[in-house]
């Protein structure tokens, strides 16, 4: 368990470094690192500080956030098919961003698009809490999340459908595929604080998620309040997934696949899966973000496309393996 966390941390650190050192600008790794740490004049410190550092930080934060929230959602719903997008917040964030692109708002200011996405995410959480309030159970939460996701998906499709401007439609399509290219430190400062608060909230659910292994009645009898747990979980997931979608677009499969891969390594305990899955998500997203820069650099392969291309076969393989075992 501890060995796994140390190993994953080292992997994440190595990939973070590799992410800092990957890019089209032509300078050596040592030169880049020196410029990052000591600053200086010329283009190299600017490239390192303004382009590569925010990209690497966002890759780490978004990946860790998706892995963490995926593990938390699966633990809470006691279902290995749950993922962070299930509560509809990422869909609503995407809708907010899509509207910002369509209306041209995103061209007015660098943070207009992520701000619109955050507004969409907040609206989604509001709807969710109204629908699946303090008295609803986990099934109500899923159903409300599915309804909100469908609504957001329909809204996004409607914007695309009615878009008079093919360039905006094109831009929307590309944004929806998810990417970390050309993000600035402003994006980092916008997304990171709420994500850290969300992570702290999810950390407090660890014991409750463990107790839920025995079912809701037994967990309640052990002193875990299901409604308080649900509230902290929904708030934590929304505070992570909303900002993550706002700055990176829709990046799928990380929150679904990473907890699934790591579960056997932590003895399937939901609380132990949280940190492992956060590290695993960060490693997967950093690796994918390095890959999109290396595979076909001239064609701008989108991050979400790559995670789905890698994630789906991985998932199929896992299904194949569990199928022969007969059980989860």
């Amino acid at each position, binding site marked *: 368990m501890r060995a796994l966390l140390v190993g994953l941390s080292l992997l994440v650190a190595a990939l973070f470094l590799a992410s800092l050192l990957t890019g089209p600008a032509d300078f050596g790794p040592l030169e880049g690192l020196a410029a990052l740490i000591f600053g200086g004049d010329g283009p190299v410190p600017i490239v390192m500080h303004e382009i590569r550092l925010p990209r690497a930080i966002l890759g780490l934060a978004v990946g860790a956030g998706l892995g963490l929230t995926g593990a938390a959602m699966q633990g809470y719903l006691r279902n290995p098919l749950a993922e962070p997008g299930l509560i509809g917040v990422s869909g609503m964030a995407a809708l907010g961003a899509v509207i910002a692109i369509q209306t041209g708002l995103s061209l007015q200011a660098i943070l207009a698009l992520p701000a619109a996405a955050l507004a969409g995410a907040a609206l989604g959480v509001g709807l969710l809490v109204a629908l699946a309030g303090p008295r609803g159970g986990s099934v109500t939460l899923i159903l409300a999340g599915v309804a909100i996701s469908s609504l957001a998906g329909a809204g996004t499709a409607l914007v695309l459908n009615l878009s008079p401007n093919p360039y905006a439609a094109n831009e929307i399509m590309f944004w929806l595929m998810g990417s970390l290219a050309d993000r600035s430190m402003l994006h980092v400062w916008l997304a990171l604080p709420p994500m850290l608060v969300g992570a702290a909230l999810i950390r407090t659910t660890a014991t409750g998620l463990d107790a839920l292994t025995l079912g809701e*009645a037994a967990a309640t009898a*052990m002193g875990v309040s299901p409604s308080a747990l649900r509230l902290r979980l929904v708030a934590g997931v929304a505070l992570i997934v909303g900002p993550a979608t706002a700055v990176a677009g829709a990046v799928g499969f990380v929150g679904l696949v990473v907890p699934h891969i790591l579960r056997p390594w932590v003895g399937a305990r939901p609380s132990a899966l949280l940190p492992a899955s956060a590290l695993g998500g960060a490693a997967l997203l950093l690796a994918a973000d390095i890959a999109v820069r290396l595979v076909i650099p001239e064609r701008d392969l989108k991050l979400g496309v790559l995670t789905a291309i890698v994630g789906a076969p991985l998932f199929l393989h896992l299904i194949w393996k569990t199928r022969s075992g007969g*059980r989860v």
Partner: protein
Amino acid sequence: MLLDIRNLSVSRRKRPVLHAVSLQLRAGELVGLIGPNGAGKSTLMEAALGLIPFAGRSNLASMTPEGRARAAAYLPQSREIAWPVSVEDLIALGRIPWPGGGRGPADRAAIDAAIARMRLEPYRKRTALRLSGGEQTRALIARALAQEAPLLIADEPVAGLDPAQQLACLRLFRSLADEGRGVLASIHDLGLAARFCSRLVLLAGGEILADGPPDAVLRDDLMRRAFGIATRRVDTPDGPAILPV
């Protein structure tokens, strides 16, 4: 008094399930809760623990959630194990109500004692989900034991156990009571209930029909009123056998 329920009533969807039930359980008692399906046995346990809304009083429900979790351990009827955790980790979940994260020396001792009492040592490292239904039940009983609460509330603990394990389970409950703890267990095997319980509570139609020593509760007229059947009692050197006829 480990359990003190007074005038407890429960309605679900406006349908009355329990009506003015009062029940007390002292340390050292093993109380068997008997009654037909749908009599409200599980509902009584859930309401006593404060898991569902009710009218009336229950000493457990008026405690704080943490305090209640240290006062009473609960084995629900549905044997849920959501993840393929090891038997040891499953039993360790019983330590959640105690401070210290469940991995301290006191926790280790409680977990080891629970494993030893349920004779689960050979299964310690096995995946709980790959065990048979009866073995899972034993692991879940061990989980409740590891909670080390003075009162154990067990909903049909011997359902699905083989005869040897049924005996072992009730002997264990008996010894828990002899050590000064209290056990409330719902049970369908009237013979086992008569042999091991210090007191039986007969629940039917949402009310307590009888509460007393097994011989006073397992009377023909009460059995007919509660279950609609006659019973034949055969006294053997090993205790009474109750045959439904």
